[in-house]
């Protein structure tokens, strides 16, 4: 891909704005709360878009368009089944406890609801995961810049790290959130035209459908059995594994996204944040998946487009960039590339700001130095930003030198994340759940995940303890690992809770459903109330599912 001078102008313009926003925000930071939690003062439209954009990394853009070409519209399950219901659930049912408890982080909620050891377990595993996630973002950006611009890996990693460091160091969470919103707009304006042009070139949606096998343009029709679809999944694994455990485990417990909703300026706004974010989320397949499907259709026409190849097979990760190169002239090419870089960088920044908060409040203030004056924690927060970026650079190099480390990490994340939703579900809706129950439930759930992976095989992965069952795809294996982990965590938490002493109810007010008075916001228009808004958005998601069934 050849970039013209104007493309570099657009790229520099974006960086100038990103740094400018950080510089303008630096004066507003006077307490650790301003820096780490935005002082609960961000308007709801901004927190909503940031809630969505913090998760919209460039791996998602590149990966989902590649999956579109590989699996077709079934990829949209990751949005319409694997995200929207969980986002609505966290807004309506869980934000009242997160926001109402005044916890500053997800681990801190666990401390308030359960005990110190459950918080410690969650804080440590979360801090580790964020560093690796941000390092992997950095590594992927390094690969992209090397490929597109011809920069060396070291130059691109250090350059992007410096920019992220500059704006998160200056403006903290607010700066990261503002840049996530800017990135979201850039992606919408930068990639919607690509989707429209690719589909038009292939003769509209009917033209795309006529050139591809039926299974590529139907999301539900070929899902009764694993051998009917290229993903190798069936309906129970999909709905229970992806739609329930994996998506609720991520959207309802991952501090990276919850932190955005916690920054909202009122309880109602924090509940509406994930609900409003679900609306653009369900539209994302039209921007990220449809271009991949259209690319596959184009490759079967005589228009001069071929899927990129690597080692004799299609290189799905290059689908998006090759489409950009073929449809965009100098100018728009710069915008598209800036959008990609922006989403890599905000992926890093999101992880760094979440790491900051968890380290400062849940590790440093709890175990290392409690009771210091607030300006001390502000300084620690800033130093942690520096350390977080430095550690991310190390993990980026680690990922570069050991390619398989990515797979290993994804695996570890899934072991840790899958059971978490069981803990939160019981913690928020069953007042009898105890600290011992939560801790041992989490541990045994994680072990169950590892055991399932060790005893089953899929595409040559897993089975390091023996082979009891073989899955048709790693995706199906992941869904079942999640189901097993959640079930074991759920059952163990209940069993251990019943065997241990309950906490007095007065200690649980504001933390558990049934003991927390919920404020009803009557007299406000329906779109400013979480529940009616959730019903409308839920119906829209249902319509989309039927439309592409």
């Amino acid at each position, binding site marked *: 891909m050849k970039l013209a001078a*104007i493309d570099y102008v*657009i790229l520099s313009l974006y960086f100038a704005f990103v740094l400018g*926003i950080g510089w*303008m925000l630096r004066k507003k930071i006077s307490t650790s709360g301003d820096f780490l939690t935005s002082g609960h003062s961000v308007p709801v439209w901004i927190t909503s878009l940031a809630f969505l954009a913090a998760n919209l990394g460039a791996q998602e853009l590149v990966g989902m368009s590649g999956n579109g070409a590989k699996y077709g519209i079934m990829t949209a399950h990751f949005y319409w089944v694997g995200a929207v219901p969980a986002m609505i659930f966290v807004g309506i049912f869980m934000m009242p406890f997160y926001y109402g408890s005044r916890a500053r982080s997800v681990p801190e909620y666990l401390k308030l609801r359960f005990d110190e050891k459950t918080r410690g377990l969650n804080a440590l595993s979360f801090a580790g995961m964020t560093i690796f996630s941000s390092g992997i973002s950095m590594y992927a950006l390094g690969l992209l810049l090397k490929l597109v611009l011809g920069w060396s890996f070291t130059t691109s990693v250090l350059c992007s790290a410096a920019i992220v460091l500059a704006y998160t160091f200056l403006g903290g969470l607010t700066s990261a959130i503002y840049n996530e919103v*800017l990135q979201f707009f850039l992606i919408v304006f930068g990639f919607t035209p690509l989707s429209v*042009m690719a589909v038009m070139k292939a003769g509209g949606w009917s033209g795309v459908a006529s050139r591809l096998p039926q299974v590529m343009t139907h999301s539900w029709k070929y899902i009764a059995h694993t051998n009917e679809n290229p993903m190798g999944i069936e309906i129970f694994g999909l709905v229970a594994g992806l739609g329930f455990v994996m998506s609720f485990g991520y959207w309802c417990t991952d501090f990276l996204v919850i932190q955005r909703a916690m920054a909202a300026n009122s309880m109602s706004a924090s509940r509406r944040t994930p609900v409003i974010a679900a609306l653009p989320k369900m539209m994302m397949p039209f921007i990220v998946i449809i271009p991949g499907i259209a690319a596959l259709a184009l490759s079967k026409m005589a228009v001069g487009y071929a899927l990129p190849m690597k080692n004799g097979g299609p290189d799905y990760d290059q689908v998006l960039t090759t489409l950009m190169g*073929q449809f*965009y002239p100098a100018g728009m090419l710069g915008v598209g590339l800036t959008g990609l870089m922006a989403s890599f960088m905000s992926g890093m920044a999101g992880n760094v700001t979440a790491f900051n908060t968890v380290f400062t409040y849940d590790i440093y203030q709890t175990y290392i130095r409690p009771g210091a004056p607030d300006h001390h924690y502000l300084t620690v927060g800033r130093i942690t930003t520096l350390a977080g970026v430095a550690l991310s650079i190390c993990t980026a190099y680690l990922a570069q030198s050991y390619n398989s480390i990515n797979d290993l990490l994804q695996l570890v994340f899934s072991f840790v994340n899958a059971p978490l939703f069981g803990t939160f579900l019981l913690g928020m809706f069953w007042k009898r759940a105890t600290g011992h129950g939560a801790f041992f439930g989490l541990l045994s759930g994680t072990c169950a995940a590892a055991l399932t992976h060790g005893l089953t095989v899929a595409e040559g992965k897993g089975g390091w303890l023996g082979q009891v069952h073989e899955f048709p795809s790693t995706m199906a294996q992941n869904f079942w690992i999640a189901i097993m982990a959640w079930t074991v965590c759920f059952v163990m938490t209940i069993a251990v809770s019943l065997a241990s002493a309950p906490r007095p109810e007065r200690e649980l007010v504001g933390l558990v459903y049934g003991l927390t008075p919920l404020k009803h916001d009557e007299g406000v228009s329906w779109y400013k109330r979480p529940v009616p808004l959730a019903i409308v958005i839920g119906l829209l998601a249902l319509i989309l599912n039927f439309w592409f069934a």
Partner: protein
Amino acid sequence: MMDLRVPAGSFFVLLGLILVGMGILTPGEPAALTDANVNLYCGLPMLVFGGFLLLLAWRAARRTSQ
């Protein structure tokens, strides 16, 4: 708190101006799979969107100053 609509609006107005300018000055900028004036048609909505954000920010600022 700084109003995000000001920097975001300014960014998209500038980006829109650059792209529309490119579209008018060099309408035949090559792209392999399309003959459309991509820069012009993508730049215009950005310009309008940026202007809209600035308008909202301006109205909000006027309301708070009154």
